[in-house]
């Protein structure tokens, strides 16, 4: 018991009277009172406290995570009491990062912490739903046609009936149905579509496998067994940094977040780390205490600015100008004024800087041409295998040398052991001017610039111009050549004595591109600040051995010209020798979720064990065609061209570029032909030809066409679309209103008119009446109601992430961990795995009578990491005869055993053993794993596939993924490295040796997140507990990058890059929407309207549209869609904080409330990403319809440079390369609307 409390100071409470009163109180109630009567002390553990003690109690805690596309991959404790999920909290048991680093615990964010709200929320989809109109039609049809396929056909082939259920999409009327009925409708639609139109008319969309690999893979496996089309998402989301394949030959490979800790200098450039990388932001905050200097580059005073030592606020979209000027400073001060040994050495070994480029006479002068390759040299060099893919550099004496490690070495058996970056004794000069025999010979180069305002009257032609700058040259093999490094100095405006051309006098000279003063005119960033940051960045890199990092994100990656923006960034990290160094290089985190166990996942999801190749396609182009946005586009491709181009794009739109890309096999496109690909094989049989030959002949004769040429032909519509784990219509669907109008055939707020006749694509068929309602069936599985479910014909109730088994991984941390069910799926919900199992079974059942076994002709594009990448020597785009796999897609026949589809779906097929598993050019052989897996999972007991490994449960699929990947199975990692050792002649297997016997099981990753094993599937190393950083293996073990030279590329010599003026890093300003599409000019205003730049950064209160409907997140924010605007812009139109406003442009209308803050710069508004129309969105005055989503104001615009394929690193792979669904260049008009809002 507490003894009486004595006071030795003056009494401290109110006064004598109060004291007396209180003194009495002491005796009538329990507890100890301080003698001065201030406080009451009681011992704890009283019955009055029991409430909170009860509240804290729980029955069990289950490890799971959230399958949401945030890259988080956080491990969570899910608390359960009385069979009810109560709440969640982060796990703190990650393997240690080491004694001298912060740990990963706890990982999670408020969104994740609020997830369990969804389990029992009123928006939970508890039962299967179908729209009443369709239900009535189907039930009536069933009465007439007992066969479900016939019944379905009788509806969709009747235009009136079809229109009747399509035009009510999205207008309520979803009614409960049974799993039996809903699966019957779905299967019938699939069977009918496959039979009548072809399997490539069935499309599936489900993004980001890393966030739940089996949930993704189960559906993808079904789609691929069917021959359906899986749409890419990384490029569609505009999260794919196209610069990565362009520069690195890699999709994206970045450091784990714990490696930020190792950086000495960190620029957060367009990446709001506390909001978008919440679980890992602490590494940045903590690294400052280690002395890291932090720079934030953001147009607004964003959350991460709080952590910055300096805030740089360029005008939106002008970031490349700033990076370019920084490059100017670094090149001048570290390569010309003095030579920084480390940087110079790095450039020689790891970049294309020393490689030779031929200068090409064009018009009045020279332009940079093609890489000089061995085929250009005399004698033996030209005789080498694939000499046309072996670029050339010089030795110190100036003699041409064909170094190891280029693409030409990669696939040639005679070059085994030579695919490496070992230069031997050669020390290549970076510049021709470094040669002892160089006597001052120079050529005047003509280089494009795009930073000019158009001349009056020439607005249609854009603002571009030419700068003339000299480079040192010499003659090799009869060609005038220089180095990439020399081109870089010319491009960046870094003068050297004696060279002709227009050069800036100094940093303050803004008259010509490249200088800090020049960038200030475009970005508003003070020149001194640009100079200082450039110096500090480089100085830090030099002193720390490459520990300068740029952490970049959507703010710089979602622009039309983001590939050029990123190339200027990557030039900085490369020229300072930071790539491949812990704590250095690029760190891109937008939608990048690394499937660590990639090989096993791919095998499962692409059903590669049963048939190859899968139909994987580029999402952006798919939606561009399917939603008829191409009809409104008319963006002339030559408006993007360099003034020095050859006129290659003259008279063509960007849509024509897509058509050409598809025809050439650069990019995939499904549906591919205007005919059912099953029927094509039958036709070939009928005329007695090989299917491929039949297709080539028919194309040549004009009796067969690519579907991309006529997307509005009903034969070419996508007919069925399956969406799971995604919300296209409330989130990622750029040009949302076009989706509603043309794909779905319902009301939409499209305000644009179609392209005028002279602006239409020349190579596409224009049908006078644009189709509306192309899709026969939109089927979505989700656990909550989104725009996508609201517009779907059938909605399947999905299990949440706390109700299933699955696997999770990310690029942010090096662990694999598990989902586990805290409760069984409640009500009538099912896991994605179960849903697709049932669908597969129903489909197979109906296929017996309607489909049988068929052969399917798959048109596969020229594939990255294969010899296909050598289809276009020197990137010369020429008119050549159609040859599959060279000048057009590969044509491959795949057997579809439709009646056995479900049995195949549930078992491991024979091709895994027969052909092995190939990832990034390395083939793994997994016989022992298959044998072992048969004992772990059991084998199929009967039927056609008796003896095969069972994959009939989600856990068994998890085991397959873990068993078949090097990151989770050390034996495969070592095997892969040994193959790579043979290929490169470099020792590497020791990187995985320490784990050769390690084989992670599902139980292992359920017990604790487990660190992955270093594997050739990725480019970094975790060897010895090291933090993962991209390209460490390339730098330390001389493994080539997957590019033309095998090095990181500054220079891209493809014809189309030349036409676009983007062979080198360059600044291209945001698109001028006024000039291109007649939008308002940003900054103009009237008394009621103001035109502003419209940006959609990632939100603090949602992950895309997920959580934006969550009551916790809504209560902590403003409870619905808002648009952030500056006080100045608000004042122009009389808007006050929280007023209702309408924001519109040619693409649609948004209704939201204004959030007026001085955090925002004048002239730019933010509508945070993925504000779905489901919560607090009134009707619009402008359209009379429900206000739109953030993507109602955007539209798909294709950039031709993203469409290049078949050439070295510019070759397609799924989610690796493809046109991005960029959306940052838009302009909108905003006005205050009536404050009396109507909801219905």
């Amino acid at each position, binding site marked *: 018991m507490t003894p009486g*409390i004595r006071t030795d100071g*003056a009494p401290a*409470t*109110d*006064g004598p009277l*109060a004291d007396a*009163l209180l003194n009495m109180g002491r005796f009538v*109630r329990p507890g100890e009172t301080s003698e001065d009567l*201030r*406080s*009451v002390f009681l011992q704890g553990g*009283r019955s*009055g*406290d029991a409430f909170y003690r009860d*509240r*804290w109690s729980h029955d069990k805690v289950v490890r799971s995570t959230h399958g949401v596309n945030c890259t988080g991959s956080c491990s969570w404790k899910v608390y359960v009491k009385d069979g009810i999920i109560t*709440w969640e909290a982060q796990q703190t048991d990650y393997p240690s990062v080491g004694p001298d*680093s912060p740990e990963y615990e*706890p990982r999670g*964010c*408020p969104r994740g912490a*609020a997830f369990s709200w969804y389990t029992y929320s009123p*928006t939970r989809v508890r039962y299967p*739903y179908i729209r009443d109109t369709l239900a009535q039609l189907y039930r009536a049809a069933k009465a007439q046609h007992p066969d479900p396929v016939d019944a379905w056909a009788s509806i969709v082939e009747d235009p009136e009936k079809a229109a009747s259920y399509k035009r009510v999409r*999205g207008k*309520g*009327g*979803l009614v409960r149905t049974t799993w039996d009925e809903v699966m019957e409708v779905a299967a019938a639609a699939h069977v009918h579509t496959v039979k009548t139109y072809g399997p490539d008319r069935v499309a599936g969309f489900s993004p980001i496998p890393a966030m739940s690999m089996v949930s993704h893979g189960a559906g993808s496996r079904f789609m691929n067994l069917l021959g359906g089309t899986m749409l890419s998402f990384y490029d569609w989301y505009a999260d794919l940094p196209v610069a990565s394949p362009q520069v690195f030959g890699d999709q994206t490979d970045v450091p784990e977040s714990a490696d930020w800790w190792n950086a000495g200098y960190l620029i957060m450039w367009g990446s709001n780390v*506390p*909001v978008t990388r*919440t679980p890992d932001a602490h590494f940045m*905050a*903590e*690294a*400052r205490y*280690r002395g890291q*200097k932090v720079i934030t580059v953001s147009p607004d*005073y964003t*959350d991460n600015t*709080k952590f910055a*030592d300096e805030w740089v606020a360029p005008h939106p979209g002008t970031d490349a100008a700033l990076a370019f000027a920084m490059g100017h400073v670094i090149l001048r001060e570290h390569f010309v004024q003095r030579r920084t040994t480390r940087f110079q050495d790095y450039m020689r070994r790891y970049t294309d800087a020393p490689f030779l480029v031929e200068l090409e006479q064009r018009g009045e002068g020279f332009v940079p041409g093609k890489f000089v390759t061995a085929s250009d040299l005399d004698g033996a060099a030209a005789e080498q295998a694939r000499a046309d893919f072996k670029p050339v550099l010089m030795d110190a004496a100036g003699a041409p040398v064909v170094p190891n490690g280029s693409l030409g070495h990669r696939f040639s058996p005679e070059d085994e052991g030579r695919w490496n970056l070992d230069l031997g004794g050669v020390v290549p000069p970076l510049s021709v001017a470094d040669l002892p025999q160089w006597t001052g010979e120079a050529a005047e180069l003509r280089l494009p610039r795009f930073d000019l305002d158009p001349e009056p009257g020439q607005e249609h032609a854009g603002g571009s111009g030419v700068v003339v700058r000299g480079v040192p040259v010499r003659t090799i093999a009869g060609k005038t050549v220089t180095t990439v490094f020399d081109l870089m100095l010319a491009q960046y405006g870094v003068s050297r004595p004696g060279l002709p051309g227009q050069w800036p006098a100094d940093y303050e000279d803004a008259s010509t591109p490249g200088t800090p003063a020049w960038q200030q005119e475009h970005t508003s960033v003070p020149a001194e600040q640009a100079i*200082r940051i450039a110096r500090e960045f480089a100085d830090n890199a030099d002193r720390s051995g490459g520990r300068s990092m740029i952490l970049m994100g959507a703010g710089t990656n979602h622009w039309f010209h983001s590939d050029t923006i990123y190339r200027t960034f990557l030039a900085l990290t490369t020229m300072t020798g930071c790539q491949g160094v812990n704590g250095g290089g690029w760190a891109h985190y937008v939608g990048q979720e690394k499937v660590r166990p990639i090989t096993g996942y791919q095998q499962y999801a692409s059903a590669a064990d049963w048939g190859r190749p899968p139909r994987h396609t580029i999402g952006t182009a798919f939606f561009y065609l399917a939603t008829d946005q191409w009809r409104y586009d008319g963006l002339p491709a030559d408006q993007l061209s360099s003034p020095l181009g050859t006129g290659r794009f003259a008279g063509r739109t960007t849509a024509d570029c897509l058509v050409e890309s598809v025809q050439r096999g650069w990019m995939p496109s499904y549906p591919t032909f205007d005919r059912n690909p099953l029927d094509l094989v039958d036709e070939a049989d009928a005329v007695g030809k090989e299917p491929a030959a039949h297709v080539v002949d028919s194309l040549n004769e004009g009796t067969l066409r690519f579907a991309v040429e006529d997307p509005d032909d009903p034969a070419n519509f996508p007919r069925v679309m399956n969406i799971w784990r995604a919300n296209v219509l409330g989130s990622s669907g750029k040009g949302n209103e076009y989706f509603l109008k043309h794909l779905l055939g319902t009301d939409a707020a499209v305000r644009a008119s179609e392209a005028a006749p002279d602006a239409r694509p020349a190579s596409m068929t224009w049908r006078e009446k644009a189709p509306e309602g192309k899709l026969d069936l939109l089927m979505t599985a989700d656990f909550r109601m989104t725009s996508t479910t*609201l*517009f779907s014909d059938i909605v399947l109730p999905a299990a949440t992430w706390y109700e299933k088994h699955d696997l999770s991984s990310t690029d942010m941390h090096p662990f694999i961990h598990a989902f586990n069910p805290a409760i069984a799926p409640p009500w009538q919900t099912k896991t994605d795995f179960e849903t697709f199992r049932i669908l597969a079974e129903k489909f197979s059942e109906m296929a017996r009578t309607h489909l049988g076994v068929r052969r399917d002709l798959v048109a596969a594009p020229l594939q990255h990491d294969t010899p296909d990448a050598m289809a276009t020597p020197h990137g010369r785009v020429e008119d050549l005869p159609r040859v599959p796999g060279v000048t057009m897609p590969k044509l491959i026949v795949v057997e579809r055993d439709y009646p056995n589809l479900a049995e195949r779906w549930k078992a491991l097929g024979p091709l895994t053993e027969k052909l092995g598993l190939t990832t990034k050019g390395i083939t793994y052989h997994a016989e022992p794993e298959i044998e072992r897996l048969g004992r772990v999972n059991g084998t199929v007991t009967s039927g056609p596939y008796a003896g095969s490994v069972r994959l009939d449960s989600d856990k068994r699929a998890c085991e397959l993924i873990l068993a078949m990947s090097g990151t989770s199975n050390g034996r495969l990692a070592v095997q892969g490295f040994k193959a790579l050792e043979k290929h490169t002649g470099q020792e590497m297997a020791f990187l995985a040796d320490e784990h050769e016997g390690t084989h992670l099981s599902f139980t292992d990753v359920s017990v604790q997140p487990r660190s992955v094993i270093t594997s050739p599937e990725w480019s970094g190393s975790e060897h010895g507990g090291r933090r993962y950083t991209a390209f460490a293996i390339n730098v330390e073990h001389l493994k080539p990058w997957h590019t033309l030279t095998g090095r990181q590329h500054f220079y891209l010599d493809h014809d189309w890059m030349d036409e676009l003026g983007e062979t080198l890093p360059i600044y291209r300003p945001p698109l001028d929407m006024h000039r291109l599409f007649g939008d308002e000019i940003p900054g103009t205003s009237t008394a009621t309207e103001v035109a502003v730049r419209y940006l959609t950064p990632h939100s603090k209160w949602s992950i895309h549209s997920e959580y934006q409907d969550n*009551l*916790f997140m809504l*209560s*902590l*924010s*403003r409870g619905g869609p808002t648009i952030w605007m*500056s*006080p100045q812009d608000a004042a122009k139109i009389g808007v006050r*904080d929280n007023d209702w406003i309408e924001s519109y442009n040619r693409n649609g209308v948004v209704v939201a409330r204004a959030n*007026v*803050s*001085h955090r925002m*710069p004048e002239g730019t508004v933010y509508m945070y990403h993925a504000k779905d129309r489901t919560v*607090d969105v009134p009707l619009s005055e402008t359209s009379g319809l429900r206000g739109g989503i953030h993507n109602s104001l955007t539209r798909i615009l294709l950039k031709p440079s993203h469409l290049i394929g078949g050439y070295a690193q510019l070759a397609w792979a799924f989610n690796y390369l493809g046109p991005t669904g960029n959306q940052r260049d838009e302009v909108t008009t905003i006005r205050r609307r009536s404050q009396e809002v109507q*909801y*219905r």
Partner: protein
Amino acid sequence: MKVMAQMSMVMNLDKCIGCHTCSVTCKQAWTNRTGVEYVWFNNVETRPGVGYPRGYENQEKWGGGWVRNKRGRLQLRSGGRLAKLARIFSNPKLPEIDDYYEPWTYDYDMLVNAPSGDHTPVARPKSLITGKDMKVSWSANWDDDLGGSIETMHEDPILQKMSEEVKAEFEQAFMFYLPRICEHCLNPSCVASCPSGAMYKRAEDGIVLVDQDACRGWRMCVSGCPYKKVYFNHKTGKAEKCTMCYPRIEVGLPTVCSETCVGRLRYLGLVLYDADRVAEAAAVEDEHELLDAQRSVLLDPHDPAVIEAAREGGIPEDWIEAAQRSPVWRLIHDYKVALPLHPEYRTMPMVWYIPPLSPVVDVVSGSGNDGEDARTLFAAIDKLRIPIGYLAELFTAGDVAPVDESLRKLAAMRSYMRGISIDDERDERIAQAVGMTGREIEEMYRLLAIAKYEERY
């Protein structure tokens, strides 16, 4: 000397990312139920901003905390207990729901069950108080990230106190986040305000609680708490507040808000204090001396006399050990980087804060050599975007010196550690400049930067 133990917290605002994970995990665990929809035991507010409930720091309006009267005695600002008794049925200083926010939900059901109609179904907001349609116009975090600053920022009681003018202009923008829980004060004015004796401070660990059986719902505690961290459950009619997660603390787990803090900025620890000296310290005349006065009440757990007195007072041995390895004690006492929130309320709050560094206002290029040595930038405290006066009004009753000292230590740590990280050198001069040794800086760095789980709690 009367040694008592206090469970205390330090939050390093310099690391706070403003994510509100703490708020959500706390709410999910404790107040996710009817009657307390509007209640956030833990909230995070953007500063400058008005906080939650709106303008709670304006004690002229709310009358929370203590004042020192002419006799040098402490008196509840809103009047003594007699005064409270006199108006027990009508308390004019009680925040109304709109001062918090009117909690709402949406007719989500429409998303699932909307019949066929002309438009896409939508869930419109409905008040959780009245059940009627409403326009959302305030929330638990309305001015997040300077939202609506033009309308609200001038209401920030701190800005109103400051002599320096702070304009809501893009070029001068600054912000930081302030997570708040109950302060579990050594001198709690809520406890003193309770007419029913339902509020108490636990003898063993100083956690301030409401006895749910004894509470009569007079709500004097709500008014009396200057931090507005006691709430009224309108369903049960009782007061509720942050419990410092005692059901977790009792079994050796950190509080929910601490363990789930993704910024890893919360430290929990036991601090010993001299209960006899609380009243005296809380009553010192000069508000600027309150910080030192409170520090002086805290007892050095390594001092043999203190240990002896603690044993005499019945404090168990393992509690004394816990106090000795308490990170809170180190941050308050050894490094003196942590400061209390609003010491001028005289409640002796025991959740302390390390103030935030922030970007420099101007381009600090005047000296010309910054580009050569990034370390010089770290010391530019006087050029920080966050006016130091603002922080001083929060943490030191307006005295800038202790805030300056704290920020300089953080800056010195960055400079010193950069020497090790980049140049492999230990520059003792940097440490000496802030009255520390290099070794001390490295220890502080381990606590603040590496901050392993076992060292935070």
